[in-house]
């Protein structure tokens, strides 16, 4: 497989990587919107959701995109035009930067980056800049308030997220996402290797903290204070219409997908199956078909995690701003610090 990649010229490799990145961002986003936002939310409210466009409304998303694309590109009179226009692109670019580091199979990766975890956590905070810029450039008090709230919230919840991931990094002994996957699937639980050693078992506290922080990073309910529609119209997105809103929308759900992918790598074993099943010992001995099956396994795990994110979103009401900050600083961060200490002690002890 590696030989095959080397035989392709560099420009074609780059083209394939770009296409793969677009697919890896847009396909999960579209699936998440249809399966969860359109259908699951409707079922949870005892209705059927879109049913007219295509069988069971499966083409509804195309209808929505078509509607957004034909809308006028509006901007407020006093807006800072250039900044206003690039803000959604900055938010979406953070998603694309994030997916670049996700491994989908033993050889199916965009970049095999040594400090992958560090990189992922760093670029995920680029979206804060876009949101803050959007809030400021709109020249609208609701947008500004929403942007400031978003900045405060994302910075507060980045800390527990980083601290929760540190537990995984300590246990795996590497920051390379690919090697974290291998470490989980090659691992064993007290000598029994039928399940590998997914870190959700040993790092359950870290997993819960990470998922709560992801929920807040995505500004999904109950952490949707920045776009609280009953007080701020739509927060930093208030002044956006047409395809700029569409880009924000894609960014929101694509980021949900990518964060779920990263959570599945860190805690659920990523693309891999326990190596003991097929007698593999290291990453080099894995059969080539895993490059096709691996992305499907990843996709399944992603859907499972996004299901949890969306389930919580559709069930709970919104946190108040002070509750939200108190929860991050007084509960999640101390808890994740304790988790790190316990992990390091146990790592040394065993």
């Amino acid at each position: 497989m590696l030989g095959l990649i080397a035989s392709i010229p560099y420009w074609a490799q780059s083209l394939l990587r770009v296409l793969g990145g677009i697919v890896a961002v847009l396909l999960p986003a579209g699936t998440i919107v249809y399966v969860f936002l359109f259908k699951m939310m409707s079922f949870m409210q005892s209705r059927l959701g879109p049913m007219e466009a295509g069988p069971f409304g499966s083409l509804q998303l195309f209808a929505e995109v078509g509607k957004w694309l034909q809308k006028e590109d509006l901007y407020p009179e006093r807006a800072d035009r250039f900044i206003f226009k690039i803000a959604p692109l900055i938010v979406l670019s953070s998603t694309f930067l994030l997916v670049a580091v996700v491994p989908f199979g033993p050889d199916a990766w965009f970049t095999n980056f040594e400090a992958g975890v560090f990189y992922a956590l760093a670029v995920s905070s680029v979206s804060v800049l876009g949101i803050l810029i959007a809030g400021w450039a709109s020249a609208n008090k609701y947008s500004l308030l929403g942007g400031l709230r978003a900045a405060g919230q994302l910075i507060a919840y980045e800390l527990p997220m980083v601290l929760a991931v540190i537990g995984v990094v300590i246990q795996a002994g590497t920051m390379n996402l690919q090697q974290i996957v291998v470490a989980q699937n090659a691992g064993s639980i007290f000598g029994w290797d039928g399940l590998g050693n997914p870190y959700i078992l040993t790092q359950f506290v870290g997993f819960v903290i990470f998922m709560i922080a992801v929920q807040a990073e995505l500004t999904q309910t109950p952490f949707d204070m920045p776009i609280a529609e009953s007080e701020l119209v739509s927060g930093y997105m208030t002044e956006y219409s047409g395809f700029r809103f569409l880009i924000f929308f894609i960014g929101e759900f694509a980021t949900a997908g990518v964060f779920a992918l990263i959570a599945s790598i860190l805690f659920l074993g990523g693309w891999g199956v326990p190596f003991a099943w097929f007698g593999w010992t290291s990453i080099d001995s894995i059969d080539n078909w895993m490059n096709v099956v691996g992305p499907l396994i990843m996709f399944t795990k992603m859907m499972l995690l996004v299901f949890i994110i969306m389930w919580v979103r559709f069930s709970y009401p919104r946190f108040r701003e002070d509750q939200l900050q108190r929860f991050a600083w007084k509960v999640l961060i101390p808890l994740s610090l304790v988790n790190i200490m316990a992990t390091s002690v146990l790592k040394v002890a065993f």
Partner: protein
Amino acid sequence: MAKIPGLLKGLGVTLGTMVETVTKGANTVQYPHEKETPPIRARGVIALHEGNCTSCMLCARSCPDWCIYIEGHKELAPPRRAGGKPRQVNKLDRFDIDYALCMYCGICVEVCPFDALFWSPEYEYSEPRIADLLHDKAKLGEWMETVPEAPDLEAGAEKKGKK
């Protein structure tokens, strides 16, 4: 910590509703394809029984939205018995209800002293032009066909005759 059982219970409610919707179907109706039958006393549209109307104007005056327009004139009708005086009757020229204004309070139906107005459960009369929501006498008369029979009185509610 004390809130966790409640939070889990909340998740259970949404998941239970989802399973119920998938297995037993939704509470909603896919409207243009299938229609709900409205309850028998539903306030869909007001029908006019023209023969009962005396153009007394009570409905028009009690309408909070002033959406009823009545015009009439007096006419002489032939006497009931031979040799009698010709009777004076009120002839209805115009009876319009503007459903763009109507708020479906039903006060006109209540105040009508001669049972000329009735509720009908029909609800499909939207129009592309707002002016077409003004239903005239003929159209209000057509709605009479859709007025259901009044449901039976409850046991013991019959009027006691005077002895």
